[in-house]
């Protein structure tokens, strides 16, 4: 009895701790005052209108979404074959590759950002947008590999052999029997990668340049000069969007088992 009530209390505290800030932001985004306050006074949807109509946010939002989608696509294209190789074959240096591939998860974003900055920006190899795309792809790649690999490991290996014995080439066997069965895992990884890329600050901070603005960076710099609830309104929109995506994909695919 004691243990149950204690764990219940802890769980409630954790939930408050996790959800509390969102609630605060959500409520304050409706306030009529010119500065962010909690609890807010009055009620208005004006901040939402303002945020939606501001070019600064619109443009950077567009770029962030495009980068997030492209980075997730590239990471999937690289990640799915890597995950396949890691789950199906034993090769020299497999452990090293595994460790290497998880590095972007472990290495702090600041360090990764700085390293990428040195490599790409200093060497002036690519345009800023390309550099951002490469940086984001690297950051999200491990998630593609890890989630796809989990999905692959839950799939018996002999269904591929069955397909081959029925006349399929190895490649065909993969596309006809493996891919359809790890589809859910791939979509789950895509959603996770999208969210991670979209929210990423350090990489974008380091790799961004004149005229190129990613949404989180724009939000940060906006907050330095203005303290009105429009940022809260924007955050509320983003939280609802993310929440919507996760709920929808969970309902349709049950993706959380891969995360």
């Amino acid at each position: 009895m004691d243990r149950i009530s204690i764990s219940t209390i802890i769980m409630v505290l954790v939930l408050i701790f996790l959800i509390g800030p969102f609630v605060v932001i959500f409520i304050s985004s409706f306030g009529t005052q010119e500065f962010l306050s909690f609890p807010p006074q009055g009620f208005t949807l004006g901040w939402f209108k303002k945020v939606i109509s501001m070019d600064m946010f619109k443009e950077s939002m567009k770029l962030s979404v495009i980068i997030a989608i492209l980075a997730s696509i590239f990471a999937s294209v690289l990640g799915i074959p890597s995950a396949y190789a890691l789950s199906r074959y034993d090769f020299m240096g497999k452990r090293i590759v595994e460790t290497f591939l998880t590095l972007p998860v472990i290495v702090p974003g600041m360090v990764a950002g700085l390293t990428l900055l040195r490599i790409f920006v200093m060497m002036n190899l690519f345009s800023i947008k390309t550099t951002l795309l490469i940086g984001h792809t690297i950051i999200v790649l491990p998630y593609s590999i890890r989630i796809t690999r989990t999905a692959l490991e839950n799939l018996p290996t002999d269904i591929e052999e069955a397909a081959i014995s029925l006349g399929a080439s190895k490649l065909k066997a993969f596309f006809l029997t493996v891919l359809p069965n790890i589809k859910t895992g791939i979509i789950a990884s895509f959603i996770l990668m999208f969210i991670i890329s979209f929210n990423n600050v350090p990489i974008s901070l380091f790799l961004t340049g004149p005229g190129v603005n990613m949404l989180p960076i724009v939000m940060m710099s906006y907050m330095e000069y203005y303290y009105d609830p429009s940022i809260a309104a924007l955050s509320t929109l983003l939280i609802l969007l993310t929440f919507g995506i996760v709920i929808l994909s969970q309902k349709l695919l049950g993706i959380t088992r891969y995360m």
Partner: protein
Amino acid sequence: MAFLELRKITVGYDKKTNVLENFSLSVEEGEFISLLGASGSGKTTTLRTIAGFLPIRSGELIIRGKIYNNIPPNKRNIGIVFQNYALFPHLNVFENVAFGLKLRRMDKVEIEKKVKEALELVGLVGFEGRLPSQLSGGQQQRVAIARAIVIEPDLLLMDEPLSNLDAKLRVEMRSELRRLQKELGITTVYVTHDQAEAIALSDKIALLNDGKIEHFGTPEEVYNNPKTLYCAKFMGFQEFLKGKVVDFEGGYVVVDHEGRKFLARTSEDLTIGENVVLLARRKNFKPAKKETRNTLEGRIISRIFQGDTVLYMVDIGYMEILNVEMELEMGMLKEGQSITVCVEPKDCIAFKI
């Protein structure tokens, strides 16, 4: 020339060790062959070699007189039934069975006709729209068989296809498999560790041990006249005595054990003075009445009632505990009771040690 021939084949998984070495086997057209053996004996390796999933290091794999060594597995036209069925989870029964036909670019009408025939053959008409997860183990098994035979393979390979089924279904499926194979006349190689299954199904059994064939023969031969000691033990004979060959008598060998004489048959060339071990099946021990030869005395240490028979564990003060299975008609004997059993010479085999 045999339909399927493995000539001195050597294969292995890692670089250092060969699982099969100079392995030879030949199968006639239409035959049902079982590869029987314990785990690690190389039976599945043999199957995978025939299927083309393992590269052949040396030797030749010949089907219909053609060397298959370098033909990729997807071009071999071999049907395979896997141990855990390996059905495609995202496809329904119809699509699973039609998979190989679609790859062969057959037209739709013909595919439908062939799938229907195959499902009729395994008794699964009406299940076309179901997913594998909505089928019982036995039904999944049938789909796997239909999928393998619908492509009209030159050869059918089965890897312990019944081992995931419950005991009752396994016996039912046995006769079904046998019927199917005879009906279609497909040359079949069947892998199993279950000797009863191999005996019931096969035209011939290859008993494997440590990558080598110990005995290749008809079920009757392998069951009654195992060639080697390993074979005999695998086929259910138990060792009960060691002794010396002292004489030959009417086709039997006479073995002396501490002054007592035992008669046994043998498939080996034995000479007088050689040390041998005697084996017999547990059900061939009978209570001794007047016999003077081939008798053993012991004490019952425990018993298991099995319905029609009783299994006694008898301590004969030598080697392992003797298992004796007796008909119930003489009533149950008690634990601790002394017993004298005998075994007829024809049920007793001697092997060199």
